[in-house]
C-alpha cells in the first residue's frame, strides 16, 4: 500500500514538472501554448540521443536538456510567439497545435518513430525495501531521484516567483502590461525569460520522464491531455495549485489502476470532472489576479 502511495507521488511529481511550465505560460502569461509537450519531447530526445550516440552520462544530459529546450523556447518566443500574445485564444490554440504536429512529424522524419529506450546508470536502477507485508514500502531509486529533483525545483520556483525582484516584475507585467512598462519594467525581456524557463522546465520533464513514460514522436499528443488536466484542476495562478493537482492525479491514477484495474484509465477523468464541477476555476485561485 505504501509502495502504491510512493509510486503515485513519483508519477505525480513527474506530471508536475512536465506541466508546471505550461501553468507558467498559460496562467501567468495568459498564452494558450499547446506546443508545450513538443518542448518536453525536445528535452527527452536530446537526452536519449546524447546517451545513445555519444555516451554522455545521464546527469550531464539533464541540464543540457533543460538548456536546449530553454534556448529553443526563447528563439521561438522572439520569432513566433510574441506576435500572437495579443491575438484571440483560438488563434493561439491553432498556432501551437500546428507547431506540435510539425514537431511530431520532424522527429518522426529525423529520428524515426521507434520507441527510444534509455539505459539508466546502475545506481539509479535499484530498489530499496523497508518494512513487511501490507506496509512494505518499495522505493525505486529512479523514482526517488525524480521526487527529489521535482521537490527542489518546486521550492526554487516558488521562491523566485514570490520572493525575488524578478518574480514581482513578472507578476506586475502579467497583471497590467502598460503600467508595468511605465514603471520601467522591460516587459518583453521578462516574458522572454519566463517563456524560456517554462520551455526549459518542459524539456527537463521530458528528460526525466523518458525512462518512465517512454519517448516516441507522438509524445506531445499522448501527454497533452495530462498536462491540461493538471493545469485545469490546479488552476493557473500559482505553483502550489498545479503541484497539489499533479500529486492528487498521480496518486489517484496509480491507486486506481492498482485497486480497480477495470476502471483504471478512467479514474483521472472522473476526478477531474468532480473537481471542476466543484471548483470550475481550479483548486487554487489567486484572488484579484486575472484567472
Amino acid at each position, binding site marked *: 500500500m505504501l*509502495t502504491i502511495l510512493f509510486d503515485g507521488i513519483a508519477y505525480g511529481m513527474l506530471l508536475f514538472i512536465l506541466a508546471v511550465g505550461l501553468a507558467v505560460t498559460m496562467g501567468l502569461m495568459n498564452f494558450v501554448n499547446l506546443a508545450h509537450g513538443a518542448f518536453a519531447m525536445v528535452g527527452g530526445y536530446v537526452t536519449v540521443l546524447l546517451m545513445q550516440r555519444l555516451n554522455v552520462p545521464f546527469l550531464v544530459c539533464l541540464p543540457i536538456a533543460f538548456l536546449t529546450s530553454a534556448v529553443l523556447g526563447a528563439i521561438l518566443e522572439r520569432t513566433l510567439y510574441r506576435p500572437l500574445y495579443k491575438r484571440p485564444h483560438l488563434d493561439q490554440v491553432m498556432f501551437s497545435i500546428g507547431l506540435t504536429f510539425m514537431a511530431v512529424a520532424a522527429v518522426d522524419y529525423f529520428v524515426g518513430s521507434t*520507441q527510444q529506450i534509455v539505459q539508466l546508470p546502475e545506481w539509479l536502477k*535499484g530498489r530499496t525495501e523497508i518494512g513487511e507485508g501490507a506496509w512494505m514500502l518499495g522505493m525505486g531509486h529512479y523514482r526517488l531521484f525524480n521526487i527529489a529533483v521535482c521537490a527542489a525545483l518546486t521550492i526554487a520556483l516558488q521562491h523566485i516567483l514570490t520572493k525575488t525582484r524578478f518574480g514581482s516584475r513578472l507578476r506586475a507585467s502579467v497583471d497590467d502590461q502598460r503600467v508595468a512598462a511605465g514603471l520601467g519594467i522591460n516587459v518583453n525581456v521578462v516574458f522572454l525569460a519566463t517563456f524560456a524557463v517554462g520551455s526549459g522546465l518542459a524539456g527537463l520533464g521530458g528528460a526525466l520522464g523518458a525512462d518512465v513514460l517512454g519517448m516516441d514522436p*507522438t509524445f506531445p499528443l499522448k501527454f497533452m491531455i495530462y498536462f491540461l488536466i493538471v493545469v485545469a484542476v490546479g488552476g493557473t495562478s500559482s505553483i502550489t495549485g498545479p503541484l497539489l493537482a499533479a500529486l492528487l492525479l498521480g496518486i489517484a491514477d496509480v491507486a486506481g489502476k492498482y485497486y480497480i484495474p477495470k476502471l483504471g484509465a478512467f479514474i483521472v477523468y472522473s476526478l477531474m470532472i468532480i473537481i471542476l464541477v466543484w471548483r470550475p476555476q481550479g483548486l487554487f485561485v489567486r484572488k484579484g489576479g486575472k484567472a
Partner: protein
Amino acid sequence: MNKRHFLRATALASLAIAGSTVFAQDNIFKIGLILPMTGQQATTGRQIEAAAKLYMAQNGDTVAGKKIQLIIKDDTSIPDVTKRMAQELIVNDKVNVLAGFGITPSALATAPLATQSKTPQVVMAAATSSITEASPYIVRTSFTLPQAAVAIADWAPKNGIKKVVTLVSDYGPGLDAEKFFKDRLTFNGGTIVDSLRVPMRNPDFAPFLQKVRDLKPDALFVFVPSGAGAAVMKQFLERGMDKAGIKLIGPGDITDDDQLNDMGDGALGVVTSHHYSAAHPSAVNKKFVEAFKKANNNLRPNFMAVGGYDGMRVIYEALKATKGQGGGDALLAAMKGQIFESPRGPIFIDAQTRDIVQNIYLRKVEKKDGQLYNVEFDVIKDVKDPGKAR
C-alpha cells in the same frame, strides 16, 4: 459554337487518354500495402515494407507477364484512416490485392470493402483470431495469438510454473491471448491468480506490476503490442520482480527481435513461444536474415518482417498460378492451400479458414556473439489456430 466544339473535342481527347491508361494498366499488377509507417506501431510498418521490397528485389518485379507495382500507404494505426485508404486504393487505383494491416482494428475495418469489391486482403501483421472470419477474401500470413499463447501454456506447468497472473493490452489480440492462455493453463492443472488488462495508451506500468508483485505468482504472462514490450520488460526488472522469484513469460511480442538488443542483459533467460526468431537455424532463414540486414542498414528482421515477406510470396505464387489472368476470386483460390518453406519454417495456408498453419517454437533469450537472440529449444509442429477449432 466554337466553344461547344472545343469542349466536345476536349471531352473526346480526355476519353481517349483515359482509355489508353486503362489499356496500359492491363499489364500492371497493383498491390496496395497499407501499413502504420508513423505512430506507435511504426516499427511494424517499417519491417513489413522492408521485407516486401526485399522479396521484390530477390524475385523480380515481373510475374506472369505483369509488372508488379507496390503502392504503400501510411494509416498511422487509425482504423478510419485504413478504411479510407483501402477505399481509395480499390476505387481510384484499382488495386488487385490489398495487403499489410498492422493492427486488428485496421484489418477489420477493411474487411467489408474486401468482400464487396472481391479484392483479396492479405493480412501480414494483425493477429486476432477472428480476423479471417470477417471476410471470405482475407488470407493471413502472420500468426494468431491463440497459436502463440497456447504453446507456452503447455510448457509452463511442466517447468514448475503453476500460478500465473496475466497482463494484456485491452484490445482484440490481448483478449485472445488472455483467454486461450487461461483455458489451456487451467486444462494443464495450473491456475490464473488474476487477469489484468492495461489500456492501450498506458503511460506507466508501475501500478499493474506492483499488483503482480503483491500477488506473488510463479510467473507473469504478458502480451502488449509490438513496440511496447521493452517498456514492460524494463519496469519489470526495475521493480526487482525477477529477484522476487517471478518469471516473465508470454508470446514472442515481448522479446521482439527488433528491440531485444536494447533491452539489455536483464532480458536473458526469458522464455516465450512464437512462430519466428531471427535466430531460427535453417538455411532459408540465414539467407533471409543476411539479405534483410544488408538491404536495411543492419536492421534485424522480426516476426512482422517474415509475415510481410511470406505475404508477398503468397501473392506472387497466386499470380503465377492464375497466369496473370484471374480476378479477385481466382487469385484468392490460388492463395488457399499454398504450402512452402518460409524463413520461419514450413507453413501452410489452410484452405478452409484461409489462416496460417505453422510451427510454434519455444525460445529462451540467450547471448550469441555479443547480441541477444531468442534461441529456439523446442517446437510444436503444424499448429492450426486454436481459435478456429470450435
